[in-house]
């Protein structure tokens, strides 16, 4: 904030030793880190709105077609979905520990936690792959070849369209997160981070937690509709 900056400028003038990661257009490392954090959070806001469009469509059709939603949801395997939920939340935990290790300057611990997070992420994607494959085998992929036995085949197709859009987009985010984390892990391994500067770890952490949060909503919305059998 300006006052802080005024004070800061008075304190240091311009000359102080530059951290290797310090970019020239920032006055201080602090300013740089604050900018990065704010930027990341704003990016996450855009992500919320991005998924928001899908949630809107979901909500409308859930209100319109409760039976079809129940029918479609029952097609999904609650055990696989539940497993993935546990896996993803666990990966959030390991990610949090990864960030913590970076904060406290533990190089190997950071690397290990990040690797564990990536392993969990991979597990999630593998499970998701088998779920998709199952759908494919059954002909439940929306489109010209969609095929569904049931009273509300058309509306179930809408459900499954949304299912694939939402989980597909989520999986895409996981893959991007996986890529990011590979880089971060490598950087951590090289010892680039320190308690003074671990912004990239923190940023990927925020991103990963966000992906987790999306799933926290997707799981009940997609897998747990009307399991009590109200619409049977």
């Amino acid at each position, binding site marked *: 904030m300006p006052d802080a900056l005024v004070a800061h400028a008075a304190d240091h003038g311009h000359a102080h030793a530059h951290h290797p990661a310090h970019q020239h257009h920032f006055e201080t490392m602090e300013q740089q880190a604050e900018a990065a954090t704010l930027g990341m959070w704003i990016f996450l806001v855009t992500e919320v709105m991005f998924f928001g469009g899908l949630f809107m469509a979901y909500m409308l059709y859930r209100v319109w*077609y*409760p039976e079809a939603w129940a029918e479609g949801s029952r097609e999904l395997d609650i055990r696989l979905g539940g497993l993935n939920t546990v896996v993803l939340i666990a990966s959030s935990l390991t990610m949090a520990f990864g960030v913590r290790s970076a904060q406290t300057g533990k190089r190997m611990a950071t690397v290990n936690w990040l690797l564990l997070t990536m392993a969990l992420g991979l597990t999630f994607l593998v499970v998701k792959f088998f779920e998709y494959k199952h759908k494919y085998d059954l002909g439940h992929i929306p489109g010209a070849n969609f095929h569904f036995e049931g009273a509300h085949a058309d509306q179930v197709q809408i459900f499954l369209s949304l299912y694939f859009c939402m989980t597909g987009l989520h999986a895409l985010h996981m893959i991007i997160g996986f890529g990011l984390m590979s880089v971060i892990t490598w950087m951590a391994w090289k010892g680039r981070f320190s308690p003074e500067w671990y912004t990239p770890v923190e940023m990927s952490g925020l991103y990963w937690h966000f992906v987790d949060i999306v799933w926290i909503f997707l799981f009940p919305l997609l897998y747990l509709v009307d399991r009590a059998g109200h619409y049977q």
Partner: protein
Amino acid sequence: MLSGIPLFPEQASTLAPAVDNLYFFILAVTAFFALLVSALVIYFAIKYRDDTGLKVGAPITGSVPLEIGWSIIPFLVAIVIFVWSTVVFFQIIRPPDQTLEIYSTGKRWMWRFQHADGQREINALHVPLGRPVKVTFTSEDVLHDLYIPAFRVKADAIPGRYSSIWFTATKTGEYHLFCAEYCGTRHSGMIGTVYVMEPNDYQAWLTDGGITGGSMQARGEQLFQQLACTTCHLTNGTGRGPSLSGVFGSTVTLSDGRTVTVDESYVRESILTPQMKLVAGYQPLMPTFQGLVNEEGVMSLIEYVKSLSGSEGTAQARVAPDAAPGAAPVAAPAGAIEQRNEGRTQ
């Protein structure tokens, strides 16, 4: 139509003056603000002109009372416009009770109209003067929009559901009918003419148009037999399906507890997607008739279901017979009327 440069559309329905009065009111308000601001801008720009670029303006920074004033006043003015507009809007969308019912489907790129008595026409619509008319319509493909400028009415035609417009024509003549929602190549060709006729001329047109084949209600009844609806919907309510007598316009409780008003859209849904809304107390037995009956057939069935709800349920196209029998019928342009032909719809 007017020669020279037309500046104002004809007022040919009871709604037109209501809309136009509102329009002129907004015009007056906005003209006031526009002239006020422009006049001030021009006046200041000239009065305080300084071509040296070296002077500075007066050290005025602002005034809170002024700010509040010019926030509140436009807001209040806007509220007045809003209230008036809403009143007119509900006038436009809420038809009166005894309307003449006409059905229509939009299809790329033509409008088909079907009168209750069975007359059909394409891109032409004959209506009597002074009688409220309600046009219920849908689309068979993409979005369209039925627009009659002289009546100031318009509504989108949306596949899968019904929209409607209503009007009471106040002036005989021929008026434009446009498709106002972009629908592809010949969107600008999806136009037609509304013929407003004296009641007796209209009567003559109805009988003389050369179109027979029974009213929509009759056609609906026939379809009701043909499609074997009667096997389940017995009038005494003992069939597998509910009795349809008196259903139209009533409120029905569905199996999941929601309630719906039985209107055109609901009956249409019942016929095409019967599983979507089950009447409480019945099994999901009713098959879909999707593909077995076209949009016009559905409309005829609706007319028939309406007729089961008592006499006022049926829309009567006939007008009072006090019309002078000798009046010359206004013939529809050749080709504008589709000859009734059971097999060729769609």
